[in-house]
Structure formats: C-alpha cells, structure tokens
C-alpha cells in the first residue's frame, strides 16, 4: 500500500500568485496585520535574495524598488485549498484533507490506471501546475513518512518501503513538527537531523521526553503507521477575486472574468466534469449618493443593493473557458451592472459532460455550445425574451404561449431511429390537404366595422377599406373572469374584397391586398373591434 502526499510550499503566497499569474517570477511580499502594524509574513524566492525578510514592516518593505506587496487573502487561500482537493480527487477517491496546504492520497490499485509511482507523482505535479499551484509530491508506504518527505524535499520523491529512515535522515528535526520545548531540548543535545534522532535509544528518549520523544523517534525512522481520515468529496467550484480598484468598463471586467473562468475550467477538467450553469456574483461599489440603480431594479427581481447576481444556464455541461467568456460577456452587455465592481465571484454547477455518439444517418444539429453563443448574440439584437422555443399554454385565451429556452432536443437522435415511421406518417399527411395557417397581428389592430342585422358588411383598418363577401361567426369566447385580465370576445372570420388603392402606381406605398380572409373580434370589455390576424 502506498500513499502520496501533496504539499504546497509557501501556500499563502502561491494562493495570491494563482489569482494574479503576472506576479509569478517577480519579487513579491505578502503582508498581514492591522493597517498601522502590517508586517511581511511570506516572501517569494526572489524577494529573499534582495534582502526582504519575514517580519519586516510594510513601511520597510516599501523601500525596496520593484517589490510587489500584496495583502494576505483568506478567500484566495480557501480557493487554493479547494483546488488542491480537486487535484487529489482527480487521481484518487480516497483522500485525507490534512491541512490547507497538504493532502494525502491512497494510491492502492492506481498503478494499472496511471502507471508507476513516479508516473503518478508526475501526473499530480502536472495537474497542480495546470491549476496554478507548484507542489511537492512524496510517495511512501506510510502516511506520515509521505507527509514529512513532501514538506522536506522539493519536487517528486518516491521512498521505497524499508528505506524510510535512510531517506528522512538528512532532514532537520523540525520537519517532524516537534513542540517548542522538545525542539529546544533536542537543539541543546546537538540533535539536528532525523538521522541524529534515530541513533538515540528509544527507552532513554522516552524517559527524558516522554511519549512525544517516542513518537518523534518513530516518525524519523518512518515506522509510525496510522489509517487515512477520508474526506468527503465536495462538488463546489467557486473562484473569487477582490479588486483593489473598482472596475467599471466591460473590457477589463472580461479580462478578469476570463482569468477566473480559466481557473474554474481547469478545476472542472481535473475532476472530468463540466459546468451546467455559471453563477456570477459581483459586489458593487456603493454610490456616494446612495441613489437607487434603476437598471438593476428593472432587470432583476431579486437584486439586492450593492450586489449584482446572474445565473447562466448552459444547454450541455461545458468547460471551454473561451466559449463561457463569450456567453458571459453577451449576458453582461444585455444587463450591465449598475455600478463599478469591487469583488467578483464565479461559481460553477458541476455536471458530467454529455457523451453523444454521432451517426451517418443522423441529421445535422447545431453544436450546442455554438448554438448557445448564437442565441445569446441574437438576444442581444432582439431582446432576451424574444428568442427561444414557443410553448403553448393550457388555456383558451387567444394567442397564449410562452417562450422557452431553446436547446437541441436530446431525443432528436433517438427520434431519427423512428424516421421511417415519421416518413410514412408524412406520406399519409401528404395525401391529405394542407392546412391553412394563421398570421397574428401583435398587437391587435383596431378596426371599424359596419353591421347589418348583427353581421359585418364593411370593414376598415390600417387604411384599407373593403366589403365583406363571406362571414363566419360570431364565435364567442370568454374566460379568466376571476383574474384581473379577463377576456370576452366575439370572433368573426371575414372574407374581404378590398377597394382599389387610391395610388396604385406608387411603388413606395404599402402594397394593398385585393382580397383576404381575416379574423376580427369584438372586445366586449374594451367595447371595440380589432383585427387579430389573417389566414395566409
């Protein structure tokens, strides 16, 4: 049985660098503390070379030219920890969440899937790097040896079973995390490394240092064994970013969203998942006048002041960050936030990617991801509620339907297998007559009608006048009397012979039909005649 420990050195600093990749390779110092007493808590390797050390005050650190100073970010550290867990779960389902910067994986049975222990180590380093973390990986036959080796050695370390004490011998005793008192005692004794510690007799160590001494001795020999505390898999994917200066324009915001989406998609890819929905939450800069943001109140029902929240449902789970960025950008263009943004958070609802088998005889469908972008672009042209799939409502109210979100029908492929039956049905229909369709005037056009014995004889609407040559009606409909918007109408289907246009040679004028069949109705509540549409 083998265990792999993944350790993120300089974790608070790496968490910040992960959210700002431009800082990678540059002198960077992390500060923490209350503002007048801020001090450096972590420095990058380059920073140590120029003389900036841990514990230095912020004022002193600012004297160094070219040094980037950032505050410690618990939010970034939380996200980096989630990323570390994702990397672990991408390889093994049995994982221990040891510390924010350390995890341990059970590698039993993974050789057949990923290859040798070295290959597994390389894979873990590669996946961590793709998610923006530089890690140490140590693989050993017991958990604590792997943990100590990961903290003590850079890169990938594979410790063969039985050679633990030999490998750990060169590490300093503090790698075993002794208490301050024990550490001081060992230092006084001149015990500097694990090899020095293993040379001491256990019994004497026990007499002088108690149980801690025995534990440290076993750790140094790699003889301590314990079982893994399994962590429950979490399916929460969230990335957030606090901005020093509020962002107002869409272009810089897109840049930041792109970065967050890249990280989010890398995490999803590590878990072999896709995003079924993306939630955007932005904290807005409070306006000095505390004015009410009209746009926000118009576009969103659940908008809270100072917060901009949107959810973007995807037709199929996706993890293409470029495509997601395009969609987010189009959504933001449609409903822009009402104030500059101070903090951005993106969360993905994870789902398994859809696997579809293509076929020679399957009709072509729009690519779901491409289709979503096309629909978002069209919505930008015609408005969000004006593009989709119509769905009829269970009511007799005229022209009642609702627009639903359009997506490539899942069952379309299955339907193809039933094409033959559809064809035969089509043939059956083809033998019969085609049906008349109807064109709706939205909104209904006001009309003037002359009646004789309750029957329309002449009509006038939209500048057209004509005689009724045939009529069918009245067809009375009414309903929803219990609601605020009831309807009560007498409908007529009228065949109309229009009078000739006064200027027939004017090509720019609207062409007037000679005749046609239209549906008129008398609205008893509004007390007027209207044209609902035409048979065409």
């Amino acid at each position, binding site marked *: 049985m083998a265990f792999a420990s993944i350790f993120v050195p300089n974790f608070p600093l790496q968490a910040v660098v992960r959210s700002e990749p431009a800082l990678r390779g540059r002198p960077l110092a992390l500060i923490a503390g209350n503002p007048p007493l801020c001090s450096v808590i972590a420095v990058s390797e380059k920073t140590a070379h120029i003389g900036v050390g841990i514990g230095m005050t912020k004022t002193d650190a600012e004297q160094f030219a070219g040094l980037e100073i950032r505050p410690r970010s618990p939010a970034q550290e939380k996200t980096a920890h989630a990323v570390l867990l994702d990397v672990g779960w991408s390889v093994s389902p049995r994982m221990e969440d040891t510390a924010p910067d350390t995890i341990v994986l059970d590698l039993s049975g993974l050789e057949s899937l990923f290859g040798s222990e070295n290959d597994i180590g390389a894979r873990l380093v590669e996946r961590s790097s793709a998610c923006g973390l530089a890690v140490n990986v140590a693989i050993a036959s017991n958990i604590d040896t792997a943990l100590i080796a990961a903290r003590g050695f850079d890169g990938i370390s594979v410790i063969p079973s039985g050679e633990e004490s030999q490998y750990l011998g060169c590490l300093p005793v503090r790698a075993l995390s002794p208490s301050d008192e024990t550490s001081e005692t060992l230092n006084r004794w001149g015990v500097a490394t694990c090899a020095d510690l293993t040379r001491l007799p256990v019994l004497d160590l026990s007499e002088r240092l108690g149980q801690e001494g025995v534990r440290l001795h076993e750790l140094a020999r790699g003889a301590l064994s314990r079982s893994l505390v399994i962590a429950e898999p979490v399916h929460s994917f969230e990335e957030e970013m606090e901005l020093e200066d509020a962002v107002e324009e869409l272009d810089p915001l897109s840049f930041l969203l792109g970065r967050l989406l890249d990280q989010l998609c890398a995490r999803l890819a590590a878990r072999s998942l896709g995003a079924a929905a993306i939630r955007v939450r932005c904290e807005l800069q409070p306006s000095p006048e505390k004015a009410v943001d009209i746009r926000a109140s118009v576009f969103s029902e659940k908008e809270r002041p100072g917060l901009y929240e949107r959810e973007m449902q995807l037709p199929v789970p996706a993890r293409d960050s470029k495509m997601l960025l395009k969609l987010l950008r189009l959504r933001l263009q449609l409903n822009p936030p009402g104030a500059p943004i101070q903090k951005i958070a993106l969360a993905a609802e994870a789902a398994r990617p859809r696997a579809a088998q293509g076929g020679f005889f399957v009709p072509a469908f*729009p690519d779901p991801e*491409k289709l979503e972008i096309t629909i978002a672009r069209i919505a930008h042209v*015609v408005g969000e509620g*004006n*593009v989709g799939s119509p769905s009829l409502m269970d009511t*007799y109210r005229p022209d009642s339907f609702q627009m639903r979100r359009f997506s490539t029908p899942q069952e379309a492929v299955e339907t193809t297998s039933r094409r033959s039956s559809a064809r035969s049905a089509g043939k059956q229909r083809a033998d019969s007559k085609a049906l008349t369709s109807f064109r709706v005037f939205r909104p209904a056009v006001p009309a003037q009608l002359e009646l*004789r*014995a309750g029957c329309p004889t002449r009509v006038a609407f939209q500048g057209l006048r004509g005689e009724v040559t045939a009529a069918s009606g009245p067809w009375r409909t009414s309903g929803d009397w219990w609601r605020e918007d009831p309807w009560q109408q007498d409908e007529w289907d009228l065949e109309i012979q229009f009078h000739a246009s006064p200027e027939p040679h004017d090509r*720019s004028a609207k062409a007037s039909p000679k005749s*046609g069949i239209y549906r008129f109705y008398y609205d008893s509540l509004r007390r007027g005649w209207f044209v609902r549409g035409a048979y065409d």
Partner: protein
Amino acid sequence: MSSKTSALRLQVESSLAARVASPFQYRGRPAVEAVPTGVPPVDLLTGGLPRGSLTEIYGPPCSGRTSLLISALASRTAAAEVCALVDARDAFDPRSAEAAGVKLEQLLWVRCRNVDQAIRSTDLLIQGGGFGLIALDLGDAPPNLVRYVPLQVWFRFRRAVEHTPTIFLVLEQESNAKTCASLVLGLHAQETQWLRTAGNAGESSAPHPPGHLLDGWEIHAETIRSHCARLECDVADSKGAFWLSGMWNWGGRGQR
C-alpha cells in the same frame, strides 16, 4: 489542337498537378438534394425545397405563403431536424403551427421588430450552422423596406448556406433576391369555399347566414425561377394549384 497549345496545356497541367487534378476539365455542379415541402402539388411543381440554396416564396397577404412555410417546417421537424424561424414582424402563430404538425420544441423562433433585426438575426443563424431549415419571414414587412435590403446581403446568405444541408427559405410580398435564389415560387389565392353547417341552411335576414365555416381555398403557385437541372427529381410544369383546408378541420372553429 496545335502542338504549341498542347505543349502549353501539358505545362500548365504538370505545374498544377500537385494542387489541381485536371485543371481543364469542366466540373459540373453536384446534384442538389431536395426535400418535400409537405404539399404534394408544390413538390410536383418545384421538385421540393433544395438544400444549400436560397428559396423565395412570395405573394400578397392571404396567398398561402405562411401555410406553405408551416408545412415545410412540419416536414423538417418530423424528420428530426432543428429549424429556425426569423419572424420580422412577430406574426407567427404557434397554435396553428402545432396543429399543422410543427414540433415546436425543435423550432427556434426569433421575434423581431423590424427588417434590420431580422437580417442580422438570420446572418447569425446561418453562420452558426446546423439547422435543417432557416426561414426568414418578411411577409408582413412593407415591400418598400425589403426592397432596400442590398443584393449583396442575399448573395452573402446564398454563399453561406451553399454546400451545407440547410434550406434557406424567404417569405416576402415581392421577389427581391433575384438570381441569388435557386427557387422562386409565386403564390396567389383563388377561390375560397365556405361550408354551411347542418341546421343553418334556412332563410335568414342576415347578409351572411350564421354557421358558416371556412372550408378551404385554392392557391395557385407558379415557379418563377428554378435551377431544375440541379435537382435530382423531375419537374412537371411551371404552374400548379393546391388546396388549403380551413382551420375547422383541426378542431379550430367548429369543434369548440
């Protein structure tokens, strides 16, 4: 053929050998697949709707254009294809479309307010690709506005759908795409037939006796332009007629 010409031809062929197999051989256009409209007389007249081409259906209001479009949509959605309807004046009636057999869940409906929005939306849909049929309904748009759509727009649409399985259908009051359209079909309504229901055949003082139902109407269709040589099927004649049944047949009027 002189020896000089032969030598020149040989030289051109050899220099282009890596890129073009036979540069002097005329390559005929591949046969275009046509699909049925769902109205047999129109299929007999036109050979069906050609894929990868622009088809224009024009006629005055109430001339059966929408019925033909809906029939084509029903035919395509029944074949498990995904269709799009760009509605320039928001005139589509989902209820009558469903009654005619259109599977609404396979239809993307874009409700526009003007011709400009419709053209831009169509452009996006065609570029997106993957649709079995894209219909641009300019049937209620004022003809003088549609006339202002530049010819290059129609040309671009035609080129965009070329070599794709998409049928691009345009509904108008006048033909505007000119030579960009592979098939142009003109429609106009002829005779309308009203049905008197039983029990209402008696004398009445009203000018139009109550109980009438729209039984149907005859539509005359004429093929104005068709690249028939490219179609796989034979076309009988350039003129024809078909009958549209009234809405009462599908439970509209008489069965309420």
